[in-house]
């Protein structure tokens, strides 16, 4: 473990923690623009989190310790994930502890705790949200792993920094396997982050909500942590996508660590474009019925399998 590695690790974690709410704010702003509304401030998520931290936590009468512990565990898992995903540099000492499969495991850990906490109070909303979240989860997880497998087959490694190193050193061209995997990954990210075709982050209508249904009983600091964790999750997914499919600007191993200064603006620029693209997708598509989700995620899954087959057949 080098000093530079340690520094880039800390820097990256700090940037993820600080930028994640900003990304959510930016996506919300774009969504408002695209639907001709007056946009809220891009800093709104920060104010929201600050306000929530100051409030008294109201916990339901029959909540168990699991309910109160879950926000911290989910937040911890997302921070851990943020430390693995190479957003700025690939020299990440911590990434040795957890590879792409462990990353998916971390996301699953957070999801299971969210679902358990939602069932803890025993309201019909909570268990409805938990059931739907686990439903979307088991459909999305194989597709996500297939995408990561495609990338690992190309680079011969499941460690994310090594994958990004390999992908960043390839010639600039459109690889069919990567193109398929990219589409699949986008679809999975939409589902996993409770975005429009599968879920709607802005709704509180019981027929449609998934993620929000699980948060209904949370308030104050617990809610703040969960909102922050959700923002981190979106940030992590965006960074995985950017690192796999647009690995430009990331400081790959072997380069001077001063290049980090250039990596941060590159990341922000990519996130701005990515956030706008997300808002565009959300604005253009309609929320689908929950039982259409298997079709949607099945398509993502087939695309990911196709990417893997194409990679095996063409070697590209």
């Amino acid at each position, binding site marked *: 473990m080098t000093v530079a590695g340690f520094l880039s690790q800390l820097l990256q974690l700090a940037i993820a923690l600080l930028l994640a709410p900003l990304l959510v704010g930016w996506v919300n702003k774009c969504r408002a623009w695209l639907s001709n509304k007056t946009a809220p401030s891009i800093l709104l998520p920060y104010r929201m989190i600050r306000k929530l*931290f100051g409030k*008294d936590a*109201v916990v*339901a*009468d*029959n909540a*168990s310790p*699991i309910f109160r512990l879950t926000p911290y*565990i989910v*937040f*911890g*898992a997302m*921070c*851990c994930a943020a*430390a693995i995903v190479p957003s700025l540099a690939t020299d990440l000492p911590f990434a*040795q*502890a*957890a*590879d792409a*499969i462990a990353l998916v*495991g971390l996301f*699953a*850990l957070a*999801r*299971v705790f969210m*679902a*358990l906490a939602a*069932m*803890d*109070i*025993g*309201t*019909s*909303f*909570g*268990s409805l949200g938990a*059931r*739907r979240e*686990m*439903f979307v*989860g*088991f459909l999305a*997880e*194989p597709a996500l*792993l*297939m995408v990561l497998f495609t990338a*690992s087959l190309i680079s*011969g*490694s*499941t*460690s994310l920094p*090594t994958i990004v190193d390999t992908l960043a050193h390839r010639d600039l061209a459109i690889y069919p396997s990567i193109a398929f995997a990219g589409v699949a990954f986008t679809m999975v990210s939409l589902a996993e982050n409770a975005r429009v075709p599968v879920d709607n982050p802005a709704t509180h209508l019981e027929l449609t909500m998934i993620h929000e249904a699980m948060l209904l*009983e949370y308030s104050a*600091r617990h809610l703040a*942590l969960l909102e922050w964790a959700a923002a981190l999750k979106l940030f992590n997914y965006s960074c995985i996508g950017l690192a796999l499919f647009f690995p430009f600007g990331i400081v790959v191993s072997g380069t001077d660590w001063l290049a980090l200064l250039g990596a941060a603006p590159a990341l922000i620029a990519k996130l701005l474009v990515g956030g706008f693209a997300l808002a565009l997708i959300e604005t253009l598509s309609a929320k689908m019925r*929950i039982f259409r989700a298997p079709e949607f995620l099945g398509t993502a*899954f087939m695309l990911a*399998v196709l990417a893997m*087959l194409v990679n*095996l057949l063409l070697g590209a």
Partner: protein
Amino acid sequence: MSPQPLELVIAAIVAWLAIGTLGLIRPRRFRFITRVLFPAGSAVGLALGIVAFMVLAQSPHLSVEETILPLGLPDLPFHLRLDPLSAFFLLLLGATGTAISLYSSGYFRPSEGTAPGLICFQYHAFLAAMALVLVADDAYVFMVAWESMALASFFLVITEHRIPEIRRAGFLYLLIAHVGAIAILLCFGTLQGGSGDYTFATMRSLHMTGVWPSVAFFLALFGFGAKAGLLPLHIWLPEAHPAAPSPVSALMSGVMLKTAIYGILRVTFDLMDGQLWWWGVAALALGLATALFGVIFAAAQSDMKRLLAYSSIENIGIIVAGIGLTILFKSYGKTLLAAITLTAVLYHALNHAFFKSLLFLATGSVLHATNERSLGKLGGLIHRMPWVAWVALVGVLACAGLPPLNGFVSEWLLLQAFLFTPSLPQSFVNMLVPVAAAALVLAVALSAYVMVKFYGVIFLGRPREANLAYAKDAGKFERVGLLWLTLGCIVLGIFPVNVIALIDPINTMLVGSTAISAGNSNWLLLAPINADRSSYSPLIMLVVILAVVLLTLQVVHRHYHGRVRRAPAWDCGFPAQTPRMQDTAEGFGQPVRTVFEPFFRIERHLPSPSDNAPMYFVKADDHFWSWFYVPIARGAEVLARLVGYIQQGRISVYLAYSFFTLLALLFLVR
């Protein structure tokens, strides 16, 4: 001179039998049996586990020990042998048996059907038979032990034999066990290759040619698969597990299913000298089909022990898929990859023994506290039974394959193995692998769904019945047993490299390569090939997550206030909220039932508009009953009726049969 390990193992078997016999002598002395005999059995289990551990830990080279006991039929003495493979499964038996026996001390109540002394005998005979299966070194003693195991467990399953359904479940189990045993017998018959010598040593030295190795392999897969619960012979599991007392379910699911895995490994890699690639493909396909089938059915169950039984089917499927992959690698000479896959297989067997025993024991405590097995009548037990709830949480997370617990390690290793497959020379197999890996991932993701359902409906939410308010937490002995298994799940999850070091002697023995020295793993970092390729360190991950959690707690509570106000749950302005408005077990499983509808045989009854007493029910059944078993049963009936025609009941007709038979024989055998 200190005694040899094998002698100690034999001593443990004898001790178990002796403890069982003591129970028989005083069958109604309840306190003596539960407070003395079962703890003594647990101590024997611990000793056995330690012996097996020492054998594995001290054998960097092959350590094989053989002995011949002058027991059994004349000229057919018992051949016994202790090698790393046996030692590993003995470790599994000893380590989980310790906890289950301790738990049993607190579990059995005087009223449960069979007399306690008889239960004690059957239980310890079951343990002894399993240990004997693992050290058997000829087909004769293997079959004796195998059948004793089946019989002992059959009597344990029907402990509450006054209930007709339980008797039915027991007979079904006995039937399938014997169908399997016949196949195993035929398999050994094939393996001895006409030499007439049924010792395993002879089978090892023989080289079979032609179609015979394949016949032997598939007989073994079928025979042991019947015990393990592979498709289509899985049907006894969901019937027998709910019928059996919980410690017995734990022992059967956690340990007995693993003896079948042991059998497959023993026959395939030890007794046969070569493997063909297509066996691997067949085992892989069968394993994955079993895994998916098991987990999909688990999601639809509303009886907590049936749910766990189907989840066991899933895990056995994953293990057999791993065995298939090992065969595939081995047949192409990729010994290093075969070693990694075999490590995943054995690791998962060990993990499953721990977390599934833990979950079965937890259901036992819930059952005792509430008298209820149906998920629809439970709920909110985390407030009444915090001990059981917290240890079950660990078991559930491990079973769902989540890091940093043990279930994840073996799944991680297996997925790594799938990623190595493109190095195989056959492009057809290479194409197959993405699909196989995807099926495995789907099964694992679904098991998280199942486990959330299991835990959420039993322990979380509000109690669905009024009498749950009087549920009591587990007693002392039960807690110790549960805690032991919980710690096992955590330790196996956090220190994978040390566990793999124990498995490596088996890799050397069966596939001729080690998994661990090949990579540059140290005690902290698990890296099968090299750290660039893939690495995993649960300890670092756990420390980081815990550090973030504690830091966040500190920061939040220091900078803001830690005030908490308790209030009723938000009711959307509709105050008449009842616990019945929570998801039922059926409701929670409904999405899976809808998505995978073709897997189920669904019977729906919809009320018509004019019904006075409208009723709605859905029944989701197993296709295998109607597609596989019912035709066989009908066929048997038809055959019996045809045979019945020649049974006239008149002596003259029977004499005529003898006459014609004699004529035919005279004609044929001149």
